[in-house]
């Protein structure tokens, strides 16, 4: 299992017994592993000297964290106000139709995890989709499939 | 060291096992309609009756263990009393008393202990033989 040493490496970057670092450490773990496993939350809590109860509470309070494994790519549908009034929810429907999975779900083939996110700060390009951080602006329902296909092919 | 406040003194040799103290306590801790649960009990080890109730220990284990400071010593009576509004019902005090003097009332989820009836203990008042005195 390559995961275990990796987890230890991330945890070891933080000085032990410093509870303030919990949010940062969990973010680093998620960046490396894509989600927070029970084992990872436990390791983070133990290292920083906080209870598992609090670590789990933090992991469920902040939306940045995922507690289940993610798809290979993350498709984010921005639901900022600008995107909303320019049709973000229509896009969400179109994504569901195209990929067979809607917000909060991962496609059956594990290619995409789909999420709705609060404003990503690209309001001028609304509505916006993000595929693994690559921003697709001014997406209209007719082109969702094509643009997702192209983004999916990107290395 | 002599306590500055009166104490409930048990002279078990004078106890005849009539259980008046239990009834008096139940009445004092209950209402006219319903008896309360007594904080005193007559035990009969070796057949001799002996009234058992809280000794109001100076170094009380119950006070020490209470996580929220709900048990404290009454400044006037010297009794260890429970602030029911502060009690979180954890039963630590029930566990802590080495003499088993705190019992647990499941129905009200509260620990039961003698509070010396605010300085007028009913048990002593009604004890017919002087086995229980308050002085």
């Amino acid at each position, binding site marked *: 299992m390559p995961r275990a040493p990796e987890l230890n490496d991330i945890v070891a970057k933080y000085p032990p017994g410093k509870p303030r670092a*919990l949010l940062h450490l969990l973010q680093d773990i998620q960046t490396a592993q894509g989600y927070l496993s029970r084992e990872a939350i436990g390791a983070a809590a133990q290292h920083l000297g906080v209870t598992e109860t609090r670590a789990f*509470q*933090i992991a469920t309070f902040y939306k940045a964290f995922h507690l289940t494994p993610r798809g290979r790519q993350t498709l984010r549908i921005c639901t900022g106000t600008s995107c909303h*009034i320019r049709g973000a929810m229509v896009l969400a429907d179109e994504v569901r139709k195209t990929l067979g999975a809607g917000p909060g779900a991962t496609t059956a083939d594990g290619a995409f995890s789909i999420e709705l996110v609060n404003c990503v*700060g690209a309001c001028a390009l609304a509505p916006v989709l993000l595929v693994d951080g690559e921003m697709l602006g001014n997406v209209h*329902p007719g082109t969702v499939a094509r643009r997702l296909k192209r983004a999916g092919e990107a290395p | 060291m002599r306590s500055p406040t009166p104490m409930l003194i048990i002279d078990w040799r004078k106890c005849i096992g009539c259980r008046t103290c239990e009834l008096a306590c139940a009445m004092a801790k209950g209402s006219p309609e319903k008896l309360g649960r007594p904080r005193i009990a007559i035990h009969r080890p070796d057949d001799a009756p002996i009234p058992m109730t809280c000794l109001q220990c100076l170094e009380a284990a119950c006070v020490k263990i209470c996580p929220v400071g709900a048990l404290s010593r009454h400044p006037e009576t010297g009794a260890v009393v429970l602030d029911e509004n502060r009690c979180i019902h954890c039963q630590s005090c029930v566990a802590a008393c080495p003499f088993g003097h705190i019992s647990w009332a499941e129905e009200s989820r509260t620990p039961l202990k003698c509070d010396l009836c605010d300085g007028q203990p009913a048990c002593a008042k009604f004890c017919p033989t002087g086995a229980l005195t308050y002085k």
Partner: protein
Amino acid sequence: MKLTSVDMLAQRRETLVQRTAALAREVRVCAGTACVAAGAGKLSDAIQREAAAQGLVLAVDGDAADVEATVRLVNTGCQGLCQAGPLVRVLPQDAFYCGVRPKQAARLVSEALQNNAVIADWCAVSPQGQRYATRAEVPFYRHQQPIALEGCGAVAPESLDDYIAHGGFAALVRALEMSPEDIVQTVEDAGLRGRGGGGFSTGRKWRIAASASASERYVICNGDEGDPGAFMDCAIMEGDPFRIIEGMTIAARAIGAQQGFIYVRHEYPKAVARLDKAIVACREAGLLGAGILGAGFDFDVEIARGGGAFVCGESTALMRSIEGLVGEPRANYVRSVQEGLYGQPTVLNNVETFACVPAIIARGAAWFAATGTPGSPGTKAFCLVGKVAHTGLIEVPMGTTLRQVIFDIGGGVLDGRPFKAVQTGGPSGGCLGEAQLDLPVDFDALTAAGSMMGSGGMIVMDDRTCMVDVAHYYLSFLQSESCGRCVPCREGVAQFCHLLDTMRRGTAKPGDLDRAIRLAQDIAQASLCGLGKSAPNPFLSAVTHFRAEFEAHINDRTCSAGVCRDLTVFAIDAQNCTGCGLCAPACPADAIAGAPKQVHVIDAQKCTGCGACRTVCRDDAVRALPRNLPCN
């Protein structure tokens, strides 16, 4: 190189300015979020390749050291007109080009950079066909006045040298010469009000923190820009990070703090990276850490990353989050400026507020107060977005009217549709209608009108925006962002959302509007924190200005904007339809039939009312009709 004295900083600046002056031209490629999405990164690479191919030596970003270089290329932060990216600005001519593609790099290099020419056919054009030879002429920029955004779009965000060359840290030098009391007084005299929402006097806040007795004090920069539809702070953090550090350091000097935190939301990874680099660079240069610029003054800054919780923009929740706790607010009966982070006096201002500070210290209180209105001096940055022709990041003097912002700068409503409303202040603010268009942007004027300044989102809405839907949108946002601690916000907002949803679905009952208004008032009164207290604002303001629309949803079960799906079916206007065929593939319900060049038809039975067809139609041929729900 460590700058151990004020003189060393001055010498450094002198050297840098001389080197920059030796360069003939500067080309600024916008590397803001929107421009990058539009291909600005590829454009910048292409310019560098082309320059190399054409034998032009470029100095890139902060790297001004190459003495051979004659032209400088800067990948800047957001330049503002996001919708038209990638944006390119060439100095000293101040030529301004929109939508420049990588394949145009060769011409840019050969004509604009080698030959000093303005490429006329790339210049922005007015609707009347007039070419704007310089950026200053472009209406979008003409009415603006940048203070907080001064460096954003101008400096190289990752170069401390470039920031210094642009006059960076001159304000800090001034501040080191001043007494802390003088700094506080200057900020107070400038009349700077917090740009994050409430508009509390920054100087007064600093004064309270400075006068509170404590061993430690903190300075926090709130970069948790949670308002959906706002990205001003993001732009500043990405585009001019050193300015924030300078502003915070001045605040620290004023109140006697040794430690600062910048709280940045996790949706802004680039801002985190930029700030991180900037902090490291400042430490290395002796501009952060022990003995800043050789003066007996220590201050350091740490980044705290948010975890995706809007409520963490609330000051007490933000502080808990920095402490590594769940970001739940506490009742605000104790002021966090007195008992804030770790129970110590804490000054918390947002990004834009700190970005104004260096300018105020460098140029004086009177200079700042001369702009804007008496009650709200200075300028305000806004994100002008939504259904507006020119979307982007702007900064205008306080007192500019909404009409000027939307029509003069924004170029009016998108596609020439009728203006309906403008939303300011995000989920805590409100919607204003046509009648409020001449309202000046000013903290007090907006509050009096039932909205608020907020952090600066400005969302323009046209006749195809439904106010019930917008109110529901904000309330459902707040529902999912409520921390869940207190009953009125957790349960009340959810019920409120449900009531608005029934209006959208045509199942609301008469009297529901009054119920919703009462609930709104109760939530505002009884909630624990500012988030809950302001949660009903978007609804209450919408009801004030668009009551008839709510009533139409409840009583007639119609949505005139054609947004509420359960109340709407779409039909094609045969007069306008050109049979272009765009709508049919866009329909998620496969409800549209029609041959090419023939009038298309929507099957009303299949139509889900989503409006995708109307969104894509270029000929204004799709009409929203009431669905005529059966009586319930």
